[in-house]
């Protein structure tokens, strides 16, 4: 019982970060209509920036957020202009080829620039834990979880309570009509991709106190986020939040009770079942499932 609770807590904490990564992927897909298979690489880049700022300047990862967040937003804007914009009007296959290609290029680039070794940030709180009713909780993981939830909540607020959010939701629902009513839709693509990439980078930074950076780390994150978005429902932010937490818990439980070797197999088994039984996902309305070939 104790192991179960301990595992569940660890899983939910991890799931918060998954949710943050996934809402970004989902935002980009909902508004810009591109599934970005390079999304995880932006998590990886965020981790490396935090690592180098720590290793080079001694900057605490949480402090480096002040640099990483705007830098990643800017990277998102460049990514939108250079890569996404040219493929927006193309087929689903084209979009997949191009973003998968970018993902591989970024992995290779990281390997080339920073080598294959795992880079670990060790802070005073990296290994600190506290005990809550018999359950051991890692401080770094708890901070990452809370930070992720705060950011997801902030995104929900922007999406539902501000004019920018209203515009983004309108574009997600019907882009051509948004153009017709006089909205500069192209500008808002920059906003959506900028936020998406920024959230990925920030998630990466918050992982660094307890996870080491490596060139392949992003690949894992993309898979997780993709599964979360499909399970939660394309275009559903709530779906991504619930799906992220769910997946974190399932992954951790599978690691403890089945085998760490089978963690990803379990996730994909669930993914396949969801795609077959409920292709629109738990909270989705079915929009977009066809575009990625799931229906």
């Amino acid at each position, binding site marked *: 019982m104790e192991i179960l609770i301990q595992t569940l807590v660890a899983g939910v904490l991890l799931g918060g970060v998954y949710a943050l990564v996934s809402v970004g992927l989902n935002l980009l897909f909902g508004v810009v209509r591109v599934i970005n298979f390079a999304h995880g690489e932006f998590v990886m880049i965020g981790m490396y920036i935090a690592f180098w700022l720590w290793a080079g300047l001694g900057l605490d990862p949480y402090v480096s957020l002040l640099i990483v967040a705007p830098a990643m937003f800017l990277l998102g804007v460049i990514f939108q202009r250079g890569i996404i914009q040219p493929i927006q009007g193309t087929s689903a296959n084209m979009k997949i080829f191009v973003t998968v290609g970018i993902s591989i290029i970024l992995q290779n680039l990281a390997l080339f620039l920073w080598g294959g070794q795992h880079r670990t940030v060790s802070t005073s709180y990296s290994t600190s834990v506290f005990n809550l009713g018999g359950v051991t909780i890692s401080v770094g993981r708890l901070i990452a979880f809370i930070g992720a939830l705060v950011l997801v909540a902030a995104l929900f607020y922007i999406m539902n309570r501000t004019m920018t959010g209203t515009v983004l939701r309108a574009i997600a629902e*019907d882009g051509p009509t948004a153009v*017709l009513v006089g909205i500069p839709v192209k500008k808002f693509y920059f906003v959506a991709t900028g936020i998406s990439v920024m959230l990925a980078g920030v998630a990466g930074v918050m992982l660094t106190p307890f996870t080491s950076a490596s060139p392949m780390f992003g690949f894992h994150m993309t898979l997780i986020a993709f599964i979360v978005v499909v399970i939660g429902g394309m275009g559903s932010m709530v779906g991504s939040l619930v799906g992220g937490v769910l997946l974190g818990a399932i992954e951790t439980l599978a690691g403890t009770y089945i085998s760490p070797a089978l963690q990803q197999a379990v996730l994909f088994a669930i993914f396949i079942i969801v795609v077959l039984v409920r292709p629109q996902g738990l909270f989705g309305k079915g929009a977009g499932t066809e575009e990625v070939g799931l229906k």
Partner: protein
Amino acid sequence: MLKVEGLAAFYGESQALENVSFELPDNGVTALLGANAAGKTTTLRVVSGVLPARRGTVTFNGVNITKATPEERVRLGIVHVPEGRRLFGTLSVEENLLLGGYSKRKDGNSKERLDRIYSMLPKLAERRTQLAGTLSGGEQQMCAVGRGLMSEPTVLMIDEMSLGLAPVIVSQMFSFVKEIAARGVSVLLVEQQVQHALQAADRATIIDRGVTTHSGTSEEIRNDPKVREAYLGV
């Protein structure tokens, strides 16, 4: 004020407009009439800038706007209320209206403009927090026209406003449109219901297979023997 000359437009390889010309006066209601697939919607799409013109020009107050973006045209006051309403169904009525006023958001009086729309269309005020997708057909059309009015247009083009609406609602909408036109908006009504539209409009242009064939006052159009034969079934 708005002048369209010799427009031609294509969807890929297939030509939808061949030679479309007409002029809108400063106010009043003008009807653009024609059979199904004649090119009415395409004409509006070219005027609002969402479909490029292959040939011809669109001039607004003496300025050539043929290459202007849709956003620029809305800011100039040219607004297109699309066929089938095309509301943002998952957004509230008020959000739809606010989006219609996007081009004017920097003027800072969006609250006043919203209130003006609500006073003109009180039904929308009752439904302000409701999702637009849950409105009745008539209310949706009101919301679509209201969304268009939020940017304070000088030219308001409404595509198939009466389609699918009950006759009572259609009459209400036509008189609402006449009211707007009387306040100094030039309204372009696209209709397949020729009789009804000619009653509401001051002027009319007929389009046939991508070519505008007749223009004149409603009276002239109604009495034109060729028009009578082709569109009025007499």
